[in-house]
């Protein structure tokens, strides 16, 4: 059994238009992979299709997690199996408190009839919130409602910390963050790095990768990985811009 998130020749369409055109990528546990690419390259589509969003149609290829077929699983099954997506635009759920939301997510992972230990849950949540410098008032507030951009992203990382996934996909987690929030979020992610966990960090800008240093960097363009390298590739991209990739491809 492969201890990795393995994407093989993936093809994805939306309303009949192909967005991802044969993407292959393997993320072994213990590694952080970054995908960079210009707008419209299919980065966010990749994130959503891995999480199981129903607007996207997989027309070919496979995705496995530790050898298990991911594409055959329901959205919630994927999460319970250990896949986590930190949303670019986290949704607001009015009237559902953050604490209840997290509790329901953890409860969903327990066998039927088993109840979550409320005291241990709160202790854990508060400890994680302290790490993320989140005020306790966020436990009682409705999920993401009225949160600033930075607060929403911290909340995504809090969920990741509580759910302890095997593979985490961070979709443009840096967008809308000021430098302090970026630092805190990155610290949260770095504290979760472990040999038992793989990360896929999707970003438009190199900046995030100063804080979350990747093992591998991939450049995505027009639905494919067009270049892979180590962290220096990100710096090169930052310096030369995405046009460099486009020109190279055209040549």
């Amino acid at each position, binding site marked *: 059994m492969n201890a990795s998130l393995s994407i093989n020749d993936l093809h994805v369409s939306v309303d009949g238009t192909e967005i991802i055109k044969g993407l292959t990528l393997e993320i072994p546990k213990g590694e952080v992979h970054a995908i960079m690419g210009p707008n419209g390259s299919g980065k966010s589509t990749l994130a959503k299709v891995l*999480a*199981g*969003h*129903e607007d996207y149609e997989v027309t070919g290829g496979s995705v496995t997690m530790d050898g298990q077929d991911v594409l055959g699983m*329901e*959205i*919630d099954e*994927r*999460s*319970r199996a250990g896949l986590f*997506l930190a*949303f670019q635009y*986290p*949704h607001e*759920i*009015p*009237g*559902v408190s953050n604490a*209840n*939301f997290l509790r*329901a*997510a953890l409860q*969903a*992972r327990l066998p039927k009839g088993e109840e979550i230990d409320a005291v241990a849950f709160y202790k854990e949540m508060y400890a994680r919130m302290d790490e993320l410098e989140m005020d306790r008032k966020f436990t009682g507030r*409705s999920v993401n409602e009225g949160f600033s951009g930075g607060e929403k992203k911290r909340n995504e990382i809090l*969920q990741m910390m509580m*759910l302890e996934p095997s593979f985490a996909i961070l979709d443009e987690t840096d967008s809308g963050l000021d430098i302090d929030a970026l630092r805190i979020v990155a610290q949260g992610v770095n504290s979760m790095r472990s040999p038992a966990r793989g990360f896929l960090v999707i970003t438009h800008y190199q900046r995030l990768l100063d804080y979350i240093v990747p093992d591998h960097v991939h450049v995505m363009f027009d639905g494919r990985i067009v270049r892979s390298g180590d962290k220096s590739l990100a710096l090169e991209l930052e310096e030369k811009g995405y046009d460099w990739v486009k020109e190279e491809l055209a040549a």
Partner: protein
Amino acid sequence: MPNPVAEIESTMPDRESASPAPRGEWFSHPPRHDEPANLPDWYLERRKECWHRFLETPEPVRTDEHWRFATLGNAKFEQLDTATAFPETEEIIAKTHRWGLKETAARFVFAGNRLVESEGAADLPQGVICLPIMEALAAHGDLVREHFMQEEARLGGAKFAALHGAATLSGIFVHVPRGVVIEKPIEVAHWAAGDQTAIFPHTLVVTEANASVTVLDWFRSATPEDRTLAVANVDIAAEDGSRAQYVAFQNWNDRSKHFHLNGTRVGRDARATSCFVNVGSAWSRNESVSRLTAPGADSRMLSSNLADGNQEFDQRTLQLHEAGHTTSDLLYKNALYDRSRTIFSGLIQVCPGAHHTDAYQKCRNLLGSDEAEANSMPGLEIDADQVKCSHGSTSGQISDEEIFYLRARGIAPRKARQMISQGFLNEAVEHLDGEELKAAIEQRFEERFAVLA
């Protein structure tokens, strides 16, 4: 069709005599063993007047604007018995303790018309009157008289109001004197049992200047099958600078009917909050009127309703701004499933001269089924200047993106929809004061959602 008046009469005989009481004589021979002997004359007179008014007032008709969209068959008076049947009351008292509030200032449990438990009322601060309505009538007749059924039924329920005035036996009178603050809620549980029976719960809350109190009514059936008609009335008089909060949680079985009238009067710098929660019954109608009578008066009108099966919830409201510099804020929320129906008809009326009024009205419907039907009729009448008013109603379904977000955290689709709907209903409840109160209501919602198919 049989004459409903004759039917009602034939069902209200003195239970000690074999023959039905003659028309109009029922109140001199009330079918009640528990009521005090020394009820004041004015009240006995009022009861008679109410009974005659009930007989004379026609049943609602389709052409009456206040009954638009209503299923009129629900408002027909069927054969009913006023004597409720409770062989065992220990069980309902135990149940009340189990799902009621842990922290209360006082608690009353009514089995039908009969008080079966009360605790805490004697320990309330000096000067507070907190008594079953019948005892209050006997002991504080003049005080009760000032406030008893003083608000006009303006929203179509005159016949029901008259019946209530004639027949009420259960419920409480709360009078909080000047400056006295009661922190914990006063809790009242109304239980019904006995098929084809009627009960008439009454709640009268008066807060004198700068006083404060919360009263909560629970409505529950003791059996899943006994059909009950409840015609309830809650009147709230919040005098200058006071705070009065009232919550009704209606969870009758799905064969029962509920009619709830509310007249709220808010004085200078006072705030009154009403919250009507409906999850039970086959049919429930709330008529709620809030009168803002002096500058600084503030009325919050809240409601959360969970309808499924063939349930119909019909709600009519009036925010009546009689004085300037007053505020009212209404938020009614309905979550609908299956073939359920809701009707919301709300009017903001700003009287001539009531300048600088702020009045808001929102009705929000969450449709969980294509067959469910939400009717909204918001309305506005303004006869003053410098007024801020807004009203609106929305109907929508749970968005796929919200569901996706919850499912992406491992929550199964059914549970995800449940959480979002429950969150939607919690939003109105969140405006209440009192953490335990809110938590208790949310807990009851959760139980109700758990049995929702």
